[in-house]
């Protein structure tokens, strides 16, 4: 069974908030449109409880050629979840791994995660939440195969064994696929026994990813590739300013350019409108869009400006805010010594390599959508609402995505909703064909849905002996859920844990009082990888280093005294320190910095070796110690940590912050918004704590510790605080 996350104690956690959010999604009477869909899902499975034992025959397809096609409910966006889940199934069913293939299934009730109440890929929880269910699925399939073979041979099932895709009885053996016609008649077992870790042949092995061969030779079809050359292509001329609305539009040359099949105004999400152009191919659509002349009505209110917002929010951070549940220690009078620290984190764009897209085929009484979405349940509902169809008439096909990082999980389902609106308008104009709505890189960069800008302020109060009496902290940042259909998920405190997770629930034994402000502003905001942890870890870990400095303590030793016994972070930290030879003499001009952070069930410690030359930060090497419980695929797991390190490093590079001026993004693409490149990549060594505990997440936990590890190294080199990433040259 999955362990309850040990860091989820007392204060409301992100898990609690997400569960609350999901109860709202499924049961809130205000959203009547959702109820028929819930009933439709129940009818599909024949079960009212999505947590009831799923039928392996629905997800595991034995093909006549011997291939075993495993269908999983998760999006493959690079994190390796589909291969990992296939390993769980294949292990327990004793499949021949060489014959195993994995596909992502469509939006369907059987893929609803009972712990979250919806089908979703995110939160680093695919394997974490399905650790038992997918092994059970495989074990159930094995049971069916054994029963079928026993029936075929007239043998007692308990005398049969399974190995690499075969059922065996003494000298006899049958390949699994030869039994497939008998399987539907077999009765499912009441319960199954799972293999102990010592018996694993596949789980725990660094098996090559199943999706790699198709991807590297260009055969794999991502959302953007679906129907290329066969479907119509649409692009939208989007506002120059968040929330602007089309007042008037025309073709600059006076007539529609060649190749335009339709052009119309289209409402956008979350606000505003644009002009959509539909053509037979991408080049025609793009060319036509640039021939549009549009007058915009700008929204009321002050235009967002990231510098002005930062200044305003730093002032807000001086004022009392919403108190975080469980972090309500009383204020203190003046003490012997006080330290004030401030951190500022900019807006960040997700910038997955595959720009957003969805292909919609709208017919009289049903609709099919092909896209790489992280939010199948939410999107299916939104498609149904937008098209005026019951959810049972919505087929949402999940295609591999060229990266997600949270951008493909929006509460307002911006991608599929806009694509459906285009398809509806196109169909009204006689275009009865599938339409792919594509975001260009400019559209994707400028659309918003950024990691929110955050200001943190800490007031540390010490007594005359240097003991910390109170850490009074304020966080200022837009709430992710506020203003979305999921606003009720925030809870009565008004504190959105997406801004506080990693700090509010820190495992460190420190006297914390936490207050939060959630200012509203027109910039659309969204998760970004690791969500709250991508800034709270930076704050906590640089703050702890500051405490170590003031107290004359070694930062590693101080952390060990602050972490509870038995906490995964202790093992992770000790592993990283040992592997990095923490404390050894370094070449002149270099320093090591450490950080350890726990998120999504996994503790990751990092030691970064850094130098500074001409104000340019150079990260030479990063050594990571990871406690992720049982690692299902060590190669894939290591790759996730390596990749997250690069992504985090990117946020420290000058030019990586998404700037907002006059209500719009300043940058428009990969030419003027800096992403990390091969030359920026340090040497990385990742070490895992050997463990047979239930798996923790791996998609996101590698990101939070890198920034503070580097900042702490720089602080050792320079004696200054590095609290404002990116570190400007």
């Amino acid at each position, binding site marked *: 069974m999955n362990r309850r996350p040990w860091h989820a104690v007392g204060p409301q956690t992100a898990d609690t908030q997400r569960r609350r959010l999901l109860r709202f999604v499924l049961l809130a009477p205000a959203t009547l449109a959702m109820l028929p869909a819930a009933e439709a899902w129940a009818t599909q499975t024949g079960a009212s409880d999505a947590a009831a034992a799923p039928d392996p025959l629905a997800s595991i397809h034995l093909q006549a050629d011997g291939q075993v096609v495993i269908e999983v409910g998760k999006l493959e966006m690079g994190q390796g979840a589909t291969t990992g889940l296939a390993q769980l199934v294949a292990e327990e069913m004793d499949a021949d791994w060489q014959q195993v293939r994995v596909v992502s299934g469509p939006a369907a009730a059987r893929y609803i995660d009972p712990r979250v109440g919806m089908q979703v890929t995110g939160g680093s929880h695919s394997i974490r939440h399905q650790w038992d269910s997918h092994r059970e699925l495989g074990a159930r399939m094995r049971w069916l195969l054994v029963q079928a073979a026993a029936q075929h041979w007239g043998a007692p099932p308990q005398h049969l064994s399974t190995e690499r895709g075969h059922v065996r009885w003494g000298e006899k053996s049958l390949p699994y696929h030869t039994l497939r016609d008998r399987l539907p008649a077999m009765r499912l077992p009441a319960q199954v026994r799972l293999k102990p870790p010592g018996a694993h042949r596949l789980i725990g092995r660094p098996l090559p990813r199943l999706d790699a061969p198709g991807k*590297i030779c260009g055969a794999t079809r991502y959302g953007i590739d679906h129907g290329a050359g066969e479907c119509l292509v649409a692009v939208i001329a989007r506002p120059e300013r968040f929330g602007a609305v089309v007042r008037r539009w025309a073709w600059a040359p006076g007539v529609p350019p060649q190749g335009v099949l339709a052009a119309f105004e289209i409402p956008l999400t979350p606000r505003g409108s644009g002009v959509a152009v539909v053509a037979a191919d991408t080049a025609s659509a793009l060319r036509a869009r640039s021939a549009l002349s549009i007058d915009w009505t700008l929204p009321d209110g002050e235009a967002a400006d990231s510098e002005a917002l930062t200044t305003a929010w730093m002032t807000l951070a001086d004022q009392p805010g919403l108190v975080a549940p469980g972090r309500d220690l009383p204020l203190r009078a003046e003490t012997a010594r006080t330290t004030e620290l401030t951190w500022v984190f900019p807006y960040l764009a997700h910038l997955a*390599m595959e720009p957003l897209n969805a292909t919609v085929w709208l017919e009289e009484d049903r609709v099919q959508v092909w896209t790489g979405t992280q939010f199948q349940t939410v999107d299916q509902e939104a498609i149904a609402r937008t098209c005026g169809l019951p959810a049972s008439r919505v087929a949402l096909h999940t295609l591999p995505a*060229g990266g997600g990082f949270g951008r493909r999980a929006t509460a307002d389902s911006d991608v599929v909703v806009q694509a459906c609106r285009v398809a509806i308008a196109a169909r009204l104009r006689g275009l009865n064909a599938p339409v792919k709505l594509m975001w260009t890189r400019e559209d994707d960069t400028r659309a918003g849905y950024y990691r929110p800008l955050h200001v943190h302020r800490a007031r540390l109060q010490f007594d005359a002996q240097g003991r910390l009496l109170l850490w009074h902290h304020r966080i200022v940042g837009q709430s992710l859920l506020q203003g979305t259909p999921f606003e009720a998920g925030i809870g009565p405190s008004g504190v959105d844990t997406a801004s506080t997770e990693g700090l509010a629930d820190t495992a460190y034994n420190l006297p914390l009082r936490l207050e939060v402000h959630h200012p509203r502003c027109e910039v659309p905001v969204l998760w970004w990888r690791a969500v709250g942890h991508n800034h709270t870890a930076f704050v906590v870990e640089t703050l702890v280093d500051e405490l170590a400095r003031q107290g004359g303590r070694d930062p590693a030793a101080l952390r060990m005294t602050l972490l509870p016994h038995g906490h995964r972070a202790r093992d992770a930290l000790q592993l990283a320190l040992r592997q990095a030879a923490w404390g050894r003499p370094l070449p002149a001009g270099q320093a090591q910095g450490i950080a350890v952070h726990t998120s999504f069930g996994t503790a990751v410690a990092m030691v970064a070796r850094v130098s500074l030359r001409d104000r340019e930060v150079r990260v030479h090497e990063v050594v990571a110690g990871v406690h992720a419980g049982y690692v299902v695929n060590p190669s894939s797991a290591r790759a996730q940590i390596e990749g997250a390190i690069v992504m985090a490093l990117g946020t420290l590079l000058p030019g990586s912050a998404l700037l907002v001026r006059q209500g719009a993004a300043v940058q428009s693409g990969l030419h003027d918004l800096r992403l990390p490149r091969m030359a920026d990549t340090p040497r990385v060594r990742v070490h895992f704590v050997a463990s047979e505990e239930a798996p923790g997440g791996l998609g996101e936990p590698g990101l939070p510790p890198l920034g503070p590890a580097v900042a702490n190294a720089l602080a050792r080199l320079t004696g200054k605080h590095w609290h404002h990433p990116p570190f400007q040259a």
Partner: protein
Amino acid sequence: MRQPFLIVNQRPHPAPADGDTPLLWWLRDSLGLTGTKYGCGVGACGACTVHVDGQARRACITPCSAVDGEIVTIEHAVTTPLGRRVLAAWLAEDVAQCGYCQPGQIMGAMALLAREPRPQANRIVEGMNGHLCRCGTYGRIQRAIARAAREGST
């Protein structure tokens, strides 16, 4: 000079009527060769890399009318001896995560190895730094290229 035909993967195809059409979209939409990817449209990321007479070119900023040689895309490149060697190295190092940038990376790597069969580490970085990977697989790409180079000389 405008050619009436363009040779792609050793086969001739009528060139598009509008010579300004970027090679990327003609390959993807007209020929159905979707292995060449759209990442930025401005030549900054390398996802659209093809070979024209063996040289790496960015198809998103190359008008069809400007193509003056034979075009090879990822679909054909991986069937050549060098392509197979590079693919094998990519699999051995378990490089791909989301995989979207990888065809472009592989086309870039092949062009590099064709020019420099045994590049030093710094030459690999120089040669590949123009290719973006949002998943951050750079370390493994570097190791895969070094591996492919080693395998080529044995």
